[in-house]
């Protein structure tokens, strides 16, 4: 992936992240910086906390302590509106989790529509107050209204067009009006990926995206992820696909016992592991 343009801008910065489930310490202090356009693969034995680590990144599990800096704000802080930041952190689950009550196209457009329409409503509401306040202001001191560029209908239409474009990219546009229950696992997972993409995320988190798939469907999902990597998407991927990690990742991280035990470029990571536990692990899975 050398052709990719890399900058040193850090998108996601994690410092001393800890997570306890009651008495059980799952994460014991994780530090990692994810740069823009970087693909980080996270591997480790089961129960080591790698999924918990990923779910802590968008506060799906609330971290017990530490700092996660994203867009200049600390996500661990309760006062930060996590929903706004989650819109920019895409997440793909092991079990796909498409919304079963909605058609594919609505699955993709639901969140963009809700967010855009919510913003529109807020802008209209603010404009109303500005107009009201302007009545009492002097002529040259009137405050300008917030510009509203699109109407409700236009927003919905734009989002739908975007969703169709994304569906076309994965070649599933004829499934737009189908329900998720009629799709194969591989199709569901690819749609889950573009559902996350529809929000224009800054970083995407993948929680073992191929573990629940039939072997023959793994390929199509990995191909799509590879494309995303080439397009310069920042990704954190928890995976058991060592071949994929070696080929696509810029950095591989080994987590064990709630800590990062080793982290290096894939070539170094797989050919010359230093940590004993990692050596043991790699000998079992490779």
């Amino acid at each position, binding site marked *: 992936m050398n052709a990719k343009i890399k900058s040193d801008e850090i998108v996601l910065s994690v410092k001393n992240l800890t997570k306890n489930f009651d008495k059980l310490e799952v994460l014991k202090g994780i530090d990692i910086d994810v740069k823009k356009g970087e693909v980080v693969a996270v591997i480790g034995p089961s129960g080591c906390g790698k999924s918990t680590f990923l779910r802590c990144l968008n506060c*799906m599990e609330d971290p017990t302590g530490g700092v996660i800096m994203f867009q200049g704000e600390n996500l661990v802080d309760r006062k930060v509106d996590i929903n*706004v*930041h989650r*819109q920019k952190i895409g997440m793909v689950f092991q079990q796909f*989790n498409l919304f079963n009550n909605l058609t594919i196209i609505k699955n993709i457009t*639901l*969140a963009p529509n809700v967010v855009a329409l919510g913003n529109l409503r807020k802008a209209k509401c603010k404009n109303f107050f500005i107009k009201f306040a302007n009545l009492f202001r002097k002529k040259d001191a009137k405050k300008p209204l917030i510009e509203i560029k699109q109407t409700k209908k236009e927003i919905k239409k734009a989002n739908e067009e975007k969703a169709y474009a994304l569906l076309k990219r994965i070649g599933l546009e004829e499934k737009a009006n189908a*329900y998720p229950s009629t799709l194969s696992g591989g199709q569901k997972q690819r749609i889950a990926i573009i559902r996350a993409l529809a929000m224009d995320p800054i970083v995407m988190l993948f929680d073992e995206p191929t573990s629940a798939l039939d072997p023959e469907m793994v390929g199509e999902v990995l191909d799509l992820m590879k494309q995303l990597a080439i397009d310069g998407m920042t990704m954190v991927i928890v995976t058991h696909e060592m071949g994929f990690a070696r080929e696509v990742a810029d950095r591989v991280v080994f987590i064990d016992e709630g800590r990062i035990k080793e982290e290096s470029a894939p070539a170094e990571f797989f050919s010359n592991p230093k940590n004993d536990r990692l050596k043991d692990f790699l000998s079992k899975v490779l």
Partner: protein
Amino acid sequence: MIDWAKLWNSFTFQFIDKGGYKEVLRGLGATVQIAVFGLIIGIIVGMFIAIIKVMPKYNFFAKILDKFAVVYVAIFRGTPMVVQLLVGHYFLRPLIGWTCDPLIEAIVIFGLNSGAYVSEIMRGGIQSIDVGQLEAGRAVGLTFWTAMFRIVIPQAIKNIIPTLGNEFITLVKETSVASFVTVLDLYRAFEQIGYASYSFLIPYLVLALIYIVLIVIITIGVKLIERRLKKNERKN
């Protein structure tokens, strides 16, 4: 031996000659109104109570709401319907100076009572939906309430339609106690017809028949709704 001819005469006399059918229709109207609007209020109240119960309890506000929900359900499930009606009618009504039609009062109290039961049904329905659905909604940045209303609740409702039908049937039959607070419901109508000629056999038989017909209609309706919702999912 039963004298069928005499019974028939009695029936026509009580229901047609003396105009009993008018009272029956009025009573039927009241009963259906109480049951239908009661169920609607019940579903709305029950939905909110259920969501409050499954809500993550981080802040103080959510904890208070949760306590309120527990107390609410304890009160309305812990006392009989009749007692709630009577307390509402003879204690709360004068207390807040409410001077509405007893029918409306009955609707509100039936709704609140039904809400307590529906909340438990609804909670079961919500918990039957995979947690991943809510998580996926939250992961794309929806708030808890939006994710609930757009994703989880629609799926939960589909699962609980049969149980909700059951609740509706119970509600229809329970309306017979609304006569305690002077509502002219179905039971009251037939009682009056009986008193008019001091012959109760036929009115009560017809009353039973009407209840059965009502409930058969509801059962069929629920089945149709259920089938329709199931079909929707398999389209394409």
